[in-house]
Structures are given as structure tokens and as C-alpha cells.
């Protein structure tokens, strides 16, 4: 497996899905065990990646490079650098946790786990692909499983949420498709001179045709790519699919959605838009900072107004992804490293929050904040886990969210002073909605209706504890993740900002 570690990570879940397809559907435990095994292998490989990844180079590693479709010069080209490695680790980690968290699924178990594993394969593929066509295929492969996971196993308005998610994302990706074809037709392979989908060739401005060097053309291409990625992030005003999808999706799918899928938007901007159109990245950076600030404040205010816990967490994601955009716009070392670290940290923290919401929903079958009260006495262990996650979300020092947010603010303050000051208000609003929810759910007089609610069980602990440890560890000592990415990201800044 050493040679083709990325391919094994990507396609092992597909093998798992294929095996599951042939297990009789009444053997539910067998199906779940196979799914767990199929998700465990990439996790083990991810640990191996973490151990052997060379932190001193900005180049791509673990490269696999083969011809796929010769007549279009499409290649099977996989490789990772410091930008993709944290995302790959996050994906492997959360996917495994989510398979465990899905143990309670009882409706069409076979379909659920098969689709989930295909989704996992698509996520790995997006973070590893270095051929634009391959990237696009993986990007779209995720849509179909996600549509079904929301649409079949979701809440009451699942049909609406599923198609809305699909339509929004597809609308964004067709723009990306056209931009991709334009890049393909106007980038030449320095060796053969033919058109190419190779991203590394697209990064090199010398390979661009004269047409592709025109400023207006580049502006349009930037916007097409940006809208495609922005819908995924989601950037205001493209965010409206997110609360619907999150609220209706089953718990584990919400975790993947918020934990991994949203990162693909910002990952795409950093992986594709920045190096391919560096001058446009600079041209757009102020707007990006503004949009980030809008996301932070708008998301936080919306979160405060929610009465549904899951919707609150969903809007908090909008807010937290705003910090990522703000850090990216800064074009400074601290800003961009903070942004990618925030992508990782938000993945873990928001996963914890969604899992915690899932715990109470499984028991009480409601997520109405006002329906609860005094739950802290009834479920003390649960209370501590949930408050841990919420404190991490509001940026309590000592937990991982604080580190990345602080880095972002340090990075962006010298560049956009006013914006930073306004954006920092988001932290206060963030604290407000988090604490207010905590108070309404766990403190105050106990609602007698919930007298019989059992506390968190062992399986739920098993999903929450590893994430909790990671959040605490990275809050005290973030270097393991920062070391992975800083060489690559500092190089990226050099490319973009000169």
C-alpha cells in the first residue's frame, strides 16, 4: 500500500461499498461492521501519512501520475501538499467517527452505508486530485450520495432540502466546469505543447495563452470559479441551502457536511483560484475580506435568532467559515496559516456540536431550545461534553478554536484594520449565542418532561472523546498541524502576493 497510499485511501471505501451492496439487507450488524472496517483502513493510512509526510518542502508528495484519457490529455494525477494534508487527515478521522455515529440508523441500512462510503471516496479524491478534470469528477461524485443521504434519511422537510442542496451546488459547479474548459483550452503543456488539465501546468503563468492573459478574461474566470466555490463554503448570499440541508440531514451527514464539505469551497479557492489567477486573487482580496466579515456577523446574528439547536449550529458554521475567508484575504503568513488551521479546527469543533445535538435529538425527538431547561442535572456527562464543544466554538483560550481565530486576526489586522475591528465583534456575538443556548438548555428550572432521559452512552462517548482530545491538544499545542502546512502556505503567499 505504500506506493499508492492516496489511491488506497480514496478507493478502499468504494470497495467497501461494493461489498456492502452484496450483503443481504437483513444482516444489519454485518453491514455496519464492514462499513466501519472500510472507513478504518483510510484512517490507518492517514496516520501513516501523518508520520511520513515531509514537512520541509512545499512540493507535492505521494504522487501518482498516469494517463487516463489520452485524447483529452486527462490524467490520473494524485498528490498532496501542506494544504491538502490537513484536509485528508480530517476527512479520514471524521468519516470513521461518523460511521460509528451512524450505528443507530435502521432504515435501509445497506443503502445508507454504501452511499456514505462513496461520499467518503469523493472527499478524499477532491483533496488529492491534481488534475482539474479528475478534481471536477470527484467534486461532483459527492453530490449524488449526499442528495440521497439527506433525502432518504433526513428530517421532515428532507425532500426540499436535498434538491435545494443539489441544485445550488450544481449551479456553482457548471460555472466551474466552463472555467475549467477555458483553462484547458488555453493552457499548454510545456513538454508536448498540447492542451492540458494538469493543475501544476495551469499554476505556471508562462503556460497560459495570450487570450488567458487578458485582464477581463481573468476577472470573469475568477468570478466563475469563485461562485462555484462560494456556494460550497457557503459565502453570503449563496448560503441559503445550508441551514435547510443541515437541519434535515441525519446527524452523521451533518457532521460530514459541516466538517468536510464546507472546507472544499475554501480549499478550492486556495488550491485552484489563488495559484492559477494570482493577480485576480489580489484584486479580489478586499471583497473577500468584506464577504468574510459579512459571513461572520450575519451568521452569528442568525444563529442568535434560532430556536432550533441544529439550525443554530448550522448558522455558526456560516459565521466560522467567515473567519477562514478573512484569513485567506489577508495574504499574510499568519492569516493564511490561521485560515487553514481554522478549516481543520472548525471541522472538529462543529462535528462535536452536531454529534451533541444528535445525542439529545435521539432521546427527546426535538431540538427546540426552549423545550429544554435544567438538562445539566439530568445528563451531567452530556452537559460537560456539549459545553466543552460550545466553549471551543466561542474561542475559549486553551481550546483549538482560539488559536486559529487569534492567528487570523493577527494576520489580517495589519492589512485591513477597520474590517478586522468590525469582524472581531463576531466573537462577542458568538459568545452571546453560545452562552444563551447553554443557559436555556442546561441551566434554569428542570423541565419534568425529560425526567427519564438517560445520560450519554458508551458509543456516543466513543465518538466524542477522540474529537475532544484533539480539540484540547491543538488548543494547547497547535504545532503538529501547523508544521504540516506552513511551508506550503508560505510558498503560496509568495506566489500570490510576490
Amino acid at each position, binding site marked *: 500500500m505504500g506506493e499508492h497510499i492516496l489511491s488506497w485511501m480514496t478507493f478502499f471505501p468504494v470497495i467497501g461499498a461494493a461489498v456492502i451492496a452484496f450483503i443481504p439487507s437483513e444482516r444489519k450488524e454485518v453491514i455496519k461492521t464492514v462499513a466501519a472496517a472500510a472507513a478504518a483502513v483510510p484512517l490507518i493510512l492517514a496516520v501513516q501519512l501523518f508520520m511520513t509526510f515531509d514537512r520541509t518542502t512545499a512540493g507535492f508528495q505521494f504522487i501518482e501520475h498516469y494517463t487516463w*484519457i489520452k485524447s*483529452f490529455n486527462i490524467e490520473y494525477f494524485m498528490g498532496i501538499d501542506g494544504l491538502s494534508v490537513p484536509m485528508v487527515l480530517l476527512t479520514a478521522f471524521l468519516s470513521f467517527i461518523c460511521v460509528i455515529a451512524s450505528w443507530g440508523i435502521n432504515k435501509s441500512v445497506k443503502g445508507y452505508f454504501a452511499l456514505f462510503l462513496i461520499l467518503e471516496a469523493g472527499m478524499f479524491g477532491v483533496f488529492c486530485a491534481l488534475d482539474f478534470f479528475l478534481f471536477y469528477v470527484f467534486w461532483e461524485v459527492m*453530490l449524488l450520495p449526499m442528495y440521497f443521504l439527506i433525502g*432518504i434519511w433526513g428530517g421532515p422537510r428532507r425532500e426540499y432540502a436535498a*434538491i435545494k442542496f*443539489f441544485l445550488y451546488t450544481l449551479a456553482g459547479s457548471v*460555472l466551474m*466546469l466552463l472555467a475549467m474548459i477555458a483553462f484547458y483550452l488555453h493552457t499548454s503543456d510545456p513538454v508536448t505543447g498540447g492542451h492540458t488539465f494538469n493543475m501544476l501546468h495551469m499554476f505556471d503563468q508562462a503556460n497560459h495563452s495570450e487570450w488567458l492573459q487578458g485582464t477581463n478574461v481573468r476577472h470573469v474566470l475568477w468570478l466563475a470559479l469563485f461562485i462555484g466555490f462560494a456556494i460550497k463554503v457557503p459565502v453570503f448570499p449563496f448560503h441559503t441551502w445550508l441551514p435547510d440541508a443541515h437541519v434535515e440531514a441525519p446527524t452523521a451527514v451533518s457532521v460530514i457536511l459541516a466538517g468536510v464539505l464546507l472546507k472544499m469551497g475554501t480549499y478550492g479557492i486556495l488550491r485552484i483560484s489563488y495559484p492559477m489567477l494570482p493577480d485576480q486573487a489580489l484584486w479580489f482580496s478586499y471583497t473577500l475580506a468584506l464577504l468574510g466579515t459579512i459571513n461572520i456577523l450575519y451568521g452569528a446574528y442568525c444563529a442568535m435568532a434560532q430556536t432550533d439547536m441544529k439550525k443554530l449550529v448550522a448558522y455558526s458554521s456560516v459565521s466560522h467559515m467567515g473567519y477562514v475567508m478573512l484569513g485567506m484575504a489577508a495574504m499574510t503568513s499568519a492569516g493564511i496559516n490561521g485560515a487553514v488551521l481554522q478549516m481543520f479546527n472548525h471541522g472538529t469543533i462543529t462535528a462535536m456540536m452536531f454529534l451533541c445535538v444528535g445525542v439529545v435529538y435521539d432521546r427527546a425527538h426535538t431540538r427546540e431550545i426552549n423545550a429544554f431547561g435544567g438538562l445539566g442535572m439530568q445528563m451531567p456527562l452530556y452537559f460537560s461534553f456539549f459545553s466543552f464543544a460550545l466553549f471551543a466554538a466561542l474561542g475559549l483560550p486553551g481550546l483549538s478554536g482560539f488559536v486559529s481565530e487569534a492567528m487570523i486576526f493577527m494576520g489580517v489586522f495589519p492589512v485591513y484594520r477597520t474590517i478586522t475591528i468590525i469582524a472581531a465583534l463576531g466573537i462577542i456575538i458568538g459568545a452571546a449565542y453560545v452562552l444563551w443556548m447553554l443557559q436555556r438548555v442546561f441551566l434554569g428550572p428542570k423541565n419534568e418532561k425529560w425526567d427519564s432521559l438517560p445520560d450519554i452512552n458508551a458509543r456516543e462517548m466513543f465518538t466524542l472523546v477522540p474529537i475532544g482530545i484533539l480539540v484540547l491538544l491543538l488548543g494547547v499545542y497547535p504545532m503538529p498541524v501547523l508544521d504540516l502546512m506552513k511551508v506550503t502556505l508560505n510558498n503560496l503567499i509568495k506566489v500570490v502576493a510576490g
Partner: protein
Amino acid sequence: MELNLNIPSWSDLRFWLPEAILCITFLVALLGDLVVRGRRTWVPFAVSVAGLITAGAYAVAAMNHGLDAGQFQGHTIMGSLMIVDGMAGFFRLLFIFASLVTVLFAWTSEEIMGKRRENKGEFYALTVLLTAAMMVMAEARDLLMLFLSMEAVGLISYVMAGYMRTSLRSSEASLKYVLFGAVSSAIMLYGMSLLYGMTGAMEFDGIRNALISGTVDPFALLVVVVLILAGMSYKIAAVPFHYWCPDVYEGAPTPVSAIFSVGPKAAGFALMIRFFYTTFAAGTDAGTQLVQDINWPLLVAVMSVATMTYGNLVALRQTNVKRMLAYSSIAHVGYLLMGFVLLSSAGLASILFYLLVYTLMNLGAFFYVVAINNHLKSEELSDYVGIGFRAPWAGAMMVIFLASLTGVPPFAGFVGKFYLFTAVLDKQWFWLAIVAALNSVVSLYYYFKVVRAMFLSTPAEGTDMSPLKLHWLQYVVLAMLAIPTLALGLFFEEFKGLADMAIGMMGG
């Protein structure tokens, strides 16, 4: 003018073996049906399947032989009426495949066979004859043959549309088809007579030479092009000549609609490609200049956009799956026309590739409707609720077909669109590509309305949720279509090469 009498030689006919086999098969199947009385409908069925497979084998062999020789520029047949070249070879295989799977699937269809399998086998014989006629359409290189082959396909289609004699809907479909067909044929014939008057030639290359050497009034030429294009647009159901299409598809038995939605359409495209490419482009600047004079690209681009947008927008409102698929097939004609805008070889090759992909996924979707109709006796979307769980494997394959029709990777439909977009963007037709891309987003909504009913919606209390037992042959045929739909989305090198070759080896 010197009268050039081409005396046909019988030896030419050896290149025409697949067509000859199909004609004989037709006769045998028809006679077999008459001779073998009683419930033995398997006789025409078996004869047709055997004939199609034999013809297919010969067509493959001819293709391979042409490829091995490195040249498949064509053998003319019956003087210069027809030509068997790389492109004709491509369409032969496409038609035979489409007819073969349709015949196989029709065997399990209650609409065709009747509830107690009391119907006779005319359907099989007619499908075989239709295949032969469509193949001639792809081979015609003379105005006379062009018209004859189109009328032959038309006549057989009228009979097939009215196949369910006792059904009012089916008869109505047939009558509509006849009326629209007659009008459009007349229009096209008028255009052709003008063209003959202007050039004094019947065969396509003669027309080209006359157009290039003589001085042709661009306006007169525009009139001719519009009239002929109108006749052909009727055949492929492009806006504004599409009105017959939804009614005919809805009224005809579903297996017939299935073959209508791919076969005659693909044949219409073959005819259009050969006629317009050989008369206007075919590598000569002067020919391309003629196209520029009449602003051909804009004419076709507008038609393309109108067709796809109309098809998609109207499909959004449909509640009957079959009718929705009819509108969707109109939309796909719009996409296909994109490749026709520039008369460039890349554009035409992308049409061929898309036709191949479209045949797979569209037949698949129609066949699923046939399979479900056997059980539900309905094609209404509201009756599809929960049907996906009652036959999960068939349902999963239907999802593959619908996702592919939408153009979502990793399915073949995406590759087809990608190829079309690349051809169009290469010539900087940005607005066309953008409109087409947004159209595919619109189409997602109605295709997935079906998926939603099949899998997402909660069935009402008391709905029968027992597993559906589909005929084994239905699973086989659906898999024959679904597996290539997936495989061609991932590995399309070979078939793209085939499409490129077919255009590259188009004889003049």
C-alpha cells in the same frame, strides 16, 4: 448538360450486406408470424433478434476491415445514391444496438405483447425494417435517396406509433405523426427542388461543386437552407418543429417511444451532418464561405438554444413520466445542435459521441418506464412514490440513467456534454455554452423529481410496498445500458476515438 447514367452494379451490394440481411429478416419474421399460428409469438421475436445480431456482426466486421485498411472513405452503392463509409459504419452499429435492446425489452412489455401475450409479432418485423431504413438515411448522399429514406422511416414510424389499435391515444399519435410528417416533407421537398434548380445536381458533392463554382445568391441559398433544415428539424424534433413529439411519444406504446426517441433522431442527425457538411464544409474554404454568407452559425445556435430551453422549461411542469421524457428528448436535441453550429469536425464528432451516450441513457430511462408500467399500468409521477424501494436494483439503474441525462459525473452524459462544451468553447461561443450549462441545472430539477418520487417521498398509508418482480430479461437489458453508461463516463477514450474516426472518414 451531359446526362450521367450510372448503371448500378450488383457487386456494390456486398458492402450493403447488413441492410440486405435486415430486409430479409423483416420478410422472414413477417412470414413466420403468418405461418406459425397460435401463441408462438417467439418465432418473429427470435428471427428478429437473430437477424439483428447477424447484421450487427457484419457491420462490426466491415468497420474493422475499414479501420484495418486505415481507410474507410467509403464505397458508393447504386451509382452514387448511397455511400458506406466510416460515419455510416458508426450509425449502423448505433441503430442495430438500439433496435436489438428495444426488441429484447419489448418481449417483456405488456403494451406490445398484450396481457395474455395474444398480440402477434409485427412489432419485431417493423423494428427490423425501421433499422434498415434508418441505416439508409445515414448512407444517403443524393437528394433523391435522402427523401426516399426519410419517407421510409416516416411510414414505418406512423404504423408503429399506432400499434395499439384499440387505444385511442395510440391512434391519435399516429394520425398526428402522419399529418405533421406530410407537411414537413412537402416543405423539404420544395427546398430540394429549388436547390436542384439552382445547381442542376442531385448528389451532394455535385451540389457542392456547383455552389462553389457558380455564383449563388446568398438569399436564395438561405431560403433553400431554411426549407431543408425545417424538414430535417421535424425529424429530430427541434423547436419550432417539435409539436408532434410529446403527443406521439405519450400516445405510442412505450417501447416504440423509446426507439423513436433515439433511432429516427440519430438518423436525422446523420442525414443533416452528411448533407450540410458535404455541401458546405468538407474542408473547402469556399464551402465554409457559403455558410458564413448565410450566417449559418447564428441560425443553428438560436435554434439550439430555443430547443434546449423550451424542452427543459416545459419538462419542468410535466406530471407524466413518459411525457416528461419526451420533452427531455427535445432538450437533448438542443444540446446536440450545439455541435452543429460550426460544422467543425470536432463539433460533429461530439454530436456522434453524444448520440451514442444519449442512446444508452435515454433507452434506459424509457425501458424503466416500460418495466414499471407492466405493474402499475401508469406513468404518472404520483404513482411512482416509493417504487424505488420495491425494486432497488432497477431503481438504482434508473438513477444512473437520470443522473447521466442531467450530465452529472461520473456518468457518460457528463462526458458527452463536456465534449460538446469543449467544441463550442474552442470556437469562443461563450453565450451558447453558458446557456447550455444553465439548462442542465434546470434539467436536474425534473429528472430528480422522478428520483424523489421513487426514493425520497413517503408513500401514503396503505400503499402496496411489496417487492416488484421484474422479468429477468429486463434486468439484463437495463444492465446492458447502465453498465456502459457508467463505464463510458470513466473510460471514453475508445469511443471518442470511434466518433472522431467516423467524422474523419466521411466520404465526400
